Each structure stands twice: as C-alpha cells, then as structure tokens.
C-alpha cells in the first residue's frame, strides 16, 4: 500500500476514534445541565444520583476526546501538509476560532465542573456545567463549518493555487453547513439518549431499582423517541442538499449508475465497479425518484455522468458509500422502533419503567452504542462520498498528502490502531464496571464520597 492510502486509513481511523467521544460529550453536557437544573427545581435526590453517575462518564469521554483531538491537530501537518498550504487561509481561521472560543472554555471550566462542587458557590458550578456544554457545542459548530466548507466551498477565490477568502459570511454559512450541523447535533442527542437508556437498562436488569436509574432510563428513551423523527427529517433535507451540490455522492448512496427517470430505491445490491452495474439488486420501483424528486418520473443523477472522456473516474468508490448509507438508515430504523415501543409500554397504564417487557430492556443494552454505529456510518457515507476530492472541486486528496515514506506511516498506523482498540475496550469495560458498581449501591470509586461523608471531610479540615 502506498503513502496515500495508508495516510487516509490513518486519518480515518483517528477521526473515527475521535468522533465517538465528542458525539457523547456534546449532548451529555446539556443532559448534565438538565439533571442539575431539575435537582435545583425539585430537590429530588434522584437527579443528583443521575448527575453523579453520568458526570463520570462525561469526564472519561472528555479525556478520550481531548487526547484523540490533539492527535488530529498534529496529523494535519504530519500527513496532509498540502491541505493547509492550499486552503489554509480558510481552514486556519476556522480552526483558530475553534481553539479560542471552544477548547479553552471547555477545558478550564471542566476542572471546576468536575472537582469544584464543594469549592465554588452552586451558581458558579451550574454556570461551569453550562459553559462546558456550550464549549462542546461551539467546537462542533466551528469544525462542522470547516467540514461543510470542504464539501460545499463558497466565499473564496483561487490565486496561484491558494484559496483566499472573499466573504467570510459565505464561508461560514456555506450551502451544506446548516444541514450538516443540525444532522450532527441530533446525532449527538440520539447517541446520548440511547447510551443513557442502554446503561440504565443494564443496571435495571441486574437488579438496580433506584429512582436515579428510573429517571435516566425514562429520560433517555423519551429524548430518543422525540429526536429520531426529527433526525429522519433532517437527514432527508441533508440528502436533498447533497443532491444539489454533490450529485455523485447521492448517486453512490443510491447505487444508481445511469441518469434517468423512474429510478428504483435499491434496498440491497452489491455495486460492481468493474461492470459498472449492481449485482443481486433488490429495489422498489420508482422509489429513489420519489424520495429525491418527489415524483415517479423524476430524473436522478447516475454515476456514469462522473467519468471523464479519458476514463478517469471522478465519483467516489461506490460500495463503501452504498453500504455505509444503508447501515446508517437501518440503525436509525432500529432506534425508531425501540424508542417508540419503549415509550408506548412506559405510557401504557402509566406503569413507567415497570411496564417495559424484558426483551425490550435487553435490546436496549447493545443499542446503547447504536448512536456510535449510525454516526460512524453517516460520516463514512459523507466523507468517502467526497472522494476523490479533499475539498470538493478545489483540491484532491492525492495532492494534499505528505511525502512521508510509506513504512513510516504504516508503522505508526499499527501503533495507533492497537492503542485505539485497547482504549475502546477499556472504555466500554469501565462504563459497564461503573454501572455494575452503581447498581450494587457501592460508592463510585475512591474519590467520590457520598454527600454526608464529603461534608464530614470538609468539616474535619
């Protein structure tokens, strides 16, 4: 394998590992603020219980996100120097604003949020929780601005192969930015909803009947049931936006080779780039035309339009985009089914968590990570779908890669992959370990005394 493909795998592995954790911390920050505010309003201890448990998940996820994020900021330079040399005038300020308005905010106030509860007034602690949540969201905003600009660049001109901004408003609010931002924030909300419900269901199944676990299970499934239809809608709008700006990506997602009307919605197929057709295709007649053009004879773009005269392929690799898209949609459907069924059973005869059938509770446990699967599949769809471009129409991935010897990239890639695999296993292991401990009613680790003990410690000092 050459440096290009190795560097792509390395960056892909890195960013895939990274996105898992911000996806959790963005929405979990707001969820913690919700718990804190509920407690302030009702005085009910269950919200403190919920806060105590989930702030640990937050701290762990945050640390994982920080370290993998630092790695990424360096890999721009070590592996993709062409990116900054060509579009640095656009990407630079956006990244700089992310660091300045988001990273410092969240990093500094995280300390107060985690360890300052007894050291600062309650309002300052709540404010810190808010600022951390706000910081994670700001970070998502800036990075999605940059990412969207790479898909739908606007507000710039090229001079001697270097991009210069002409209108920052157009750069920031580029055509795909609103859709992508909403889609990602909802993805974060759903990831946290199913993680909340999944870990809480696990605690419930091993015998935890505390009010805290009821509260988080209910909160998780309710948020999930509320957000999933919104996400399906947002995804549809995002798809139509992509059709307008990156038709070749939609063609790959649909597995459609020839431009024309009455295009079927392909449910399953194995796209074959050799024969430039689908093997084993199962489809719904006129389906794609209906979804994308809202009419059975709507003309849908096909992949064959994106092959140059000399035979150079200018559309993304079809199979990865095609399958990633289907995995995302299928996961979304499973989320819809599970969350609506859960809300139905909880509402029936107002039985709450007691009304949930056991199989449904068991289904929630693996679905705790369904948000991760859908988010990654969605990212693969859109990012692989951008190939062969790094910045659509401006810079190819090949032109941006560093001239680093392939064995060097390969060796570091292996090290990264090994570490990521180990850390992921440790992370999931610790989540369930914390859940088991909480279910047994044990204090959650050596540095978390229960409230009365904490007061005694403070008084003793």
């Amino acid at each position, binding site marked *: 394998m050459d440096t290009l493909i190795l560097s792509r795998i390395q960056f892909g592995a890195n960013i895939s590992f990274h996105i898992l954790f911000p996806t959790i911390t963005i929405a979990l920050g707001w969820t913690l603020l919700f718990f804190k505010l509920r407690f302030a309003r009702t005085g009910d201890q269950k919200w403190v219980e919920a806060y*105590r448990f989930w702030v*640990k998940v937050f*701290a*762990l996820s945050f*640390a994982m996100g*920080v*370290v*993998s994020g*630092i790695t990424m*900021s*360096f890999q*721009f*330079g*070590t592996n993709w*120097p*062409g990116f*900054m*040399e060509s579009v*640095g*005038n656009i990407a*630079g*300020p956006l*990244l*700089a*604003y992310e660091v*300045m*308005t988001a*990273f*410092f905010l969240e*990093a*500094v106030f*995280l*300390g*107060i949020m*985690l*360890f*300052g*509860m*007894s050291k600062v007034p309650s309002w300052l602690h709540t404010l810190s929780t808010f600022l951390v949540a706000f910081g994670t969201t700001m970070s998502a905003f800036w990075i999605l601005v940059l990412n969207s600009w790479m898909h739908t660049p606007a507000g710039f001109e090229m001079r001697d192969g270097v991009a*210069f*901004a002409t209108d920052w408003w157009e750069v920031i609010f580029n055509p795909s930015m609103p859709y992508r931002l909403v889609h990602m924030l909802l993805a974060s909300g759903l990831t946290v909803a199913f993680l909340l419900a999944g870990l809480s269901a696990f605690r419930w199944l091993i015998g935890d009947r505390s009010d805290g676990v009821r509260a988080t299970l209910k909160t998780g499934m309710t948020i999930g049931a509320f957000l999933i239809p919104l996400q399906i809608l947002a995804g549809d709008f995002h798809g139509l936006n992509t059709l307008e700006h990156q038709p070749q990506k939609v063609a790959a997602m649909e597995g459609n080779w020839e431009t024309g009307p009455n295009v079927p919605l392909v449910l399953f197929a194995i796209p074959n780039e050799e024969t430039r057709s689908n093997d084993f295709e199962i489809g719904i007649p006129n389906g794609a035309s209906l979804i994308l053009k809202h009419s059975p004879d709507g003309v849908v773009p096909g992949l064959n339009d994106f092959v140059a005269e000399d035979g150079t392929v200018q559309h993304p690799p079809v199979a990865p985009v095609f399958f990633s898209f289907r995995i995302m949609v299928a996961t979304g459907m499973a989320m819809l089914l599970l969350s609506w069924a859960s809300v139905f059973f909880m509402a029936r005869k107002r039985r709450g968590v007691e009304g949930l059938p056991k199989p449904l509770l068991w289904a929630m446990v693996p679905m705790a990570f369904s948000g991760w699967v859908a988010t990654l599949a969605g990212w693969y769809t859109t990012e692989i779908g951008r190939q062969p471009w790094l910045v659509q129409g401006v810079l190819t991935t090949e032109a941006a890669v560093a*001239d*680093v010897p392939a064995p*060097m990239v390969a060796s*570091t890639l292996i*090290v*990264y992959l090994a*570490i990521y695999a180990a*850390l992921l296993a*440790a992370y999931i*292991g*610790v989540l369930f*370990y914390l859940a088991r401990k909480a279910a047994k009613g044990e204090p959650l*680790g*050596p*540095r*978390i*005394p229960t409230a009365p003990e904490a007061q005694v*410690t403070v008084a003793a*000092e």
Partner: protein
Amino acid sequence: MYLFGDPATWLPLAFAALLGLSILIYVVLDGFDLGVGVLFPFAEQDEKDRMVASIGPFWDANETWLVLAIGILLVAFPSAHGTILTALYLPVAVMLVGLILRGVSFEFRVKAPIRHKATWDGAFYIGSMMTSLSQGYMLGMYVMGLEVTAFTLAFSAVTAVFLTVAYSFIGATWLILKTEGALQLKAVKWSKGGIWGIVLGMGAVSLASPLVSDRIFDKWFSMPEFFLLMPLPLMSGALIVLLWLALRRLPTSDDSFAWFPFAATIVLFVLGFFGMAYSFYPFIVPDQLTIYEAASAPESLFIILIGTLFVLPMILGYTALAYTVFRGKATTLSYD
C-alpha cells in the same frame, strides 16, 4: 490592517509573538504536570493520588496551549508547519501516543477496577516520559536545524534527557507549593536532584546553538549586543544560585517561601525561552524559512488577530479563575 504600517511585516511578527507566548505558557504549565508524571515511580501509592490531585483540575487546560501553539503555527505559518511536522514525523507520533496514554490514565486510574490501578499508573508514567522525551528530542532537532546526522541525533538524545529532567524539576517545585508533610519533603529532595537538568539543559542549548550556526554566533558575540545580552545569562545564573539556597532551607516551619522555587523556575524558563527566541528570529524553520516568507495571507491573519485580541484576555481571565478556585494545598480530588 494598516495600523502599524505594512501588514505583511507586522502581522507575521505579531503571530510569531503569539506563537512564542503559547509555547512558553505550554512549556511552563504542561511542563509541571508532565514532570509530576515523570516523578511517579519515586512516590508511594497514597502520594501518587495526592500528586494527581495537585494537577487533576489543570492538565486538560494546560495541554490546550499546545493545541493553540500548533494551531497558530498551522494557521499563520502553514508552510513551516508542514516542513517542521513532516521532518519530525516519528517523534511527533511518539509524543501523541504519550499524550493519549497519560491523558486517559487520569480518568482510568480512578474509574477502572482497583486491581487495574497499578497498570494505569504505569501508563501515566510511561505516557509522561514519552511526551517529555520526544519534546526534548524535537527541541534538539530544531536547534540543530532539523538535519539528521549522527551528531544531531546524539545531541537530540541529550536534550531529550535534559528536558525531561527539567520538567521533573518544575514538577517537583510545583509539588513543594501544592503539598505538605512527607510528600513536600520528598519534593524538595527531588528538586535538589533535578536542578542539574536545568543547568545542563540550558547550558547545552546555549552552547550548541551559536556553535552550530554562525548567524546565531554573530548575534550573540558581536559588540555591543554581547553586553546588552549579558543580563540574560547572569540573571539565570543568579536564579539558579538562589534556587539552590532556597531548596536547602525548604520546607520552612510556617510554609513560607514554598512558592519560591516554582516561581523562580518559571522565570528561568522565560529567560531561556527569550534567549532561544532571540537566537532564531527571524527564522521559523532554522536558517531555511523566515516568519515573513512562511506567513499566511494578511487578510486571514487579521481576522484571526481580531478574535484573538478579544478572546485571549478572557482565556487568561478564566484560567486565573480556575487556579484561584483550586489554590492552596492539594486535597483528595472529589466530585462533590
């Protein structure tokens, strides 16, 4: 944009200053928390918890200065960023792995089952060592102009060790400030054991840079610069003597002057940094690329600068708030 004359002149200079400031703040702040990690094997189990407690609320924000520094290099001097980072590909990878290991160990060591704690403590130590050593190695390579020869490799290996010892020194002085009792006594002992790292490290870089580069030699040893610059080495020497005298008397019975070694070390780092900055200006890639040649478009730099002027004071303000909230001796870290 034309406030201070030609923007192609003053903007790169302003960003070089910002870059320098970020690196300096990073080296001081992450220096002390990396140093605490380097000292881990010398501590008992309960002392380790106290040591982590002394840096727990800060480490994340400290590392953000590295992200800012690399971000400024990336956005303001993109071609230098590419040249430097591809030349330092492997040490950067080692540093990143180190940063990952130590960053997650903060959390895992107290959240994973207790039987795994020793493993995560080990990961914390190894991660801190990898980070410090690779940063010292990169410093050496940078001083040597990023050229790979047997001599530059040997020199970089030496700076790797010295920077690690220097970090452990500032880490130990931080512990003198933040701890009490037996651990504080130990920290004084560690500081006495580590001060040679500062002396030799600063000495090696100060001697090597003028010898490697005629340009740097001329900058320091021509008249009248030689006399104007004399305060830098003289003050450094005086501070080291004062540090040594203070360490022999610490800890005092009423804990007065516990802040002194840490404060003096910060000043030492600042002096050393200014010496280096003076040597290398105006180059950002030593003897190859100046800050003016490497700078981004003035339009882009200007829009970042406006934001920076608003945001940087706020960052400094709430960083100060965090250090105020967690002032005093470190106690057991608690989420309550």
